[in-house]
């Protein structure tokens, strides 16, 4: 079994097993037919109803679902990357939520209150979001490196601070947009200018926007950075064996702090993609549950940037399509359930590898006498 297979196979098997378990759950509580149909609905909802389209259906029946999946995949990719990058230096970033919230707010403010042509406006808003996320995660980074505060604790706390500060105060208080006409209530910031919107790539009806390629580029960039640059190499060394990295003259604190800042920047970008891509403003409540999904995405992706992108794509499809399961009376939470099971099974990576190794050993044992 090649090294690559060893890395990929447990995740693939885990996702498949999770799909099977949830199928069984639906089949047992309803019936097998419903379960299969629900899965088909999820698939059509995720990648588009190709059979209907090929029979002469509306192109939108494919483009729309693809747009929804891509949008979710973009958010999951970015938060997944955020967790994975921090993990590379051995830090567990539970704080993607808070970082995403600040990123979303920064993007919303720059998007609404700065006047620029689109070619500058979009990059500036993205940059602002990345910076905001990075600042927020760096608080946890500094606490860790200077004071030894465990990052799991500090990032969780910072999540609460971000939610309380932004969701529960700023966007319904000082930064709330004012509706003209006293009857309407708006919680959330003012809508962004059209120059700050992420352009849609498949026409107006599909919400697939620049955020998706942006997320893919981010994944690719992180992969290249980790694998092909000096600083990426140093970052990995710090994560794997900090003492050896220190002895090799690597500035370990800088690398750890840098990775944490990058993690925050990626989560901040996720916030920007949400605001600039689909919401058009910081909504009354963001909550940013994608921060937590990022943990699952990163782990299922084996903390590999491209792995995270692939697992984000898979779960983007499942979750965008999963809504459609409701049409068959299947609960809306099944896509998350599948994700949760997959995470649970991936956590048993070692068990998978042991199983796979045993099979190989058995095969070898069978083959030896013949040889």
């Amino acid at each position: 079994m090649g090294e690559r297979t060893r890395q990929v196979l447990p995740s693939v098997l885990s996702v498949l097993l999770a799909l099977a378990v949830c199928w069984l759950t639906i089949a047992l509580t309803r019936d097998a037919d419903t379960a299969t149909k629900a899965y088909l609905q999820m698939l059509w909802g995720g990648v588009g109803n190709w059979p209907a389209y090929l029979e002469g259906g509306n192109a939108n029946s494919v483009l729309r679902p693809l747009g929804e999946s891509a949008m979710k995949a973009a958010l999951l990719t970015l938060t997944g990357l955020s967790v994975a990058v921090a993990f590379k230096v051995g830090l567990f970033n539970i704080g993607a939520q808070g970082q995403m919230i600040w990123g979303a707010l920064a993007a919303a403010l720059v998007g609404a209150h700065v006047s620029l042509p689109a070619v500058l406006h979009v990059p500036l808003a993205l940059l602002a979001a990345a910076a905001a996320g990075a600042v927020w995660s760096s608080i946890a980074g500094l606490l860790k490196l200077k004071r030894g505060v465990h990052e799991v604790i500090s990032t969780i706390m910072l999540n609460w601070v971000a939610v309380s500060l932004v969701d529960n105060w700023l966007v319904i208080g000082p930064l709330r947009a004012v509706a003209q006409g006293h009857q309407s209530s708006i919680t959330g910031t003012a809508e962004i200018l059209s120059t700050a919107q992420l352009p849609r790539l498949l026409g107006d009806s599909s919400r697939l926007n620049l955020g998706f390629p942006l997320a893919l580029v981010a994944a690719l960039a992180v992969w290249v950075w980790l694998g092909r640059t000096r600083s990426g190499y140093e970052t990995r060394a710090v994560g794997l064996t900090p003492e050896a990295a220190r002895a090799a003259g690597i500035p370990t604190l800088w690398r750890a702090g840098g990775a944490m800042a990058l993690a925050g920047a990626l989560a901040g970008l996720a916030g920007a993609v949400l605001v600039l891509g689909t919401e058009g403003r910081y909504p009354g409540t963001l909550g940013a549950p994608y921060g937590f999904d990022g943990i699952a995405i990163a782990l299922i992706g084996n903390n590999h940037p491209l792995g995270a992108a692939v697992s984000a794509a898979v779960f983007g499809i499942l979750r965008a399509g999963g809504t459609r399961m409701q049409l068959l009376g299947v609960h809306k939470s099944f896509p998350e359930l599948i994700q949760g099971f997959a995470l649970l099974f991936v956590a048993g990576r070692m068990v998978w590898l042991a199983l796979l190794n045993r099979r190989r050993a058995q095969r070898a044992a069978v083959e030896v006498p013949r040889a």
Partner: protein
Amino acid sequence: MSLEDASLDIVPGELLAVVGENGAGKSSLMNVLYGLYHPDAGTFLMDGKPVRLKSPRDAIARGIGMVHQHFMLVPTLTVAENVVLGREPTKRGLLDLDRACDEVAATAKRFGFQLDPRARVDTLTVGSQQKVEIVKALHRGAQVLILDEPTAVLTPQESDELAQVMRGLVQQGRTVVLISHKLKEVLGVADRVAVMRRGRTVAEVRASETTVSALASLMVGEGSRGAALTGVPVTAGPSGSDTVAAGAGTASTRSDEGTAPSGPIVLDAKDLRAKGDNGRPALQGVSLTVHAGEIVGIAGVDGNGQRELAEVLTGLRALDGGEGTLLGGPLADLTPARAKARGVGHVPEDRLARAVVKAMSVEENVALGRHRQPPFARGPWVDFKGRRERTNQLLTTYDVRPPDPTMALQAMSGGNQQKVVVARELDADPKLLVVVQPTRGLDIGAVAQVHARLREAKARGAGVVMVSLDLEEVLALSDRVYVLYEGRVTGHFPRKDLDERELGRRMLGAESDHG
């Protein structure tokens, strides 16, 4: 194999010291007595009857107590709670802490200890914590008390106090077995001394009838510089190392007479002071010089400051005092990066923690530390081609097996891992090479190779500082030897004056008898 035909008689009511070099088998023997190890052969008689101890629980039941070098105390519990742990007095099913305190206070008083049973253990000094351990053993009815290197963690004052405690216990009819390699201490307190060497008890003498230097001679072994101290598996006989070195084909043996060092000075350090990991002084004024083109051996029993010295020289440990020049720069503000930049190579003792990233590939490990320069990098990018070429070259030159640059380093044997480290450090063409225990755990072939490489570095004009617990290794390679004892230089021998017996005595803290 750590015990080989060891015999020990323990007489009730006496203080028996067991001395020996690191790895001589003292601790192993004591672990047998305490039921932690099970002997392959031999008998254990208590009061004339054969006994088989299956576990420490058995040992405790038979009145044997042990105070380990590392205390087994719960820091957040009180003295009394620690002492009664596992056999707590209860009242109606509930823990009766008052009774526990009374009992512990009584035990402490009986043996003359000053201990507050209600004090939390983490508020106590190390010396007091040790007393808690002793009281714990006594509280469990220990008749025979084994103390493993008890003074290793104590200040001199605390050590003196401990000596009084031990004598007091003996006067009360208890038996004390003291494990130590500090001969002066031992002679000050013991009734009888058993000397161990290479897994055997080689002598038992009355403390009043011997001297430090006599004991040191017994420990090191008469006329045998092949005395196994630690580390390298030795073939047999005094000439073992020479044979090995010759086998590597590049041997310049001891007869390669080094005269006075003549190369430029690469390291000139004065009065170095540094703290150990436990915060206690580990270097207490070490001065040494190293010239280009020589191997300077640092001899000493484990834990006498060698590791800290190596860390100071490589920028890994901050200096507490003293000054020096290392390759043209001050020693005081050395960091690992600066040390590297000045040309310091480092083969650390703990390879997996310090020298390599075991989850990375061989080539990535070859690049470690030099990954910012060609041929390992081009601008901000990793130079895959250059790295691969250089790695292949090194794997061939240093005979690393398998010669697969993409293999995860952890999949290699320890010897080949070490070869990778040595290859990397030497390939950087260091001006000062600091190696610690470079052959620990390696097989004979690998040992020979590493030795040959060190000589090669010397020949190329590097100054080499070699810390080794293996006296034979030190003798075989060094042009000069410094002996460290308790963070101080207790001996300095140019090659022509090397006298292994004297070296051994200095390592054990003995003052010079003659010279």
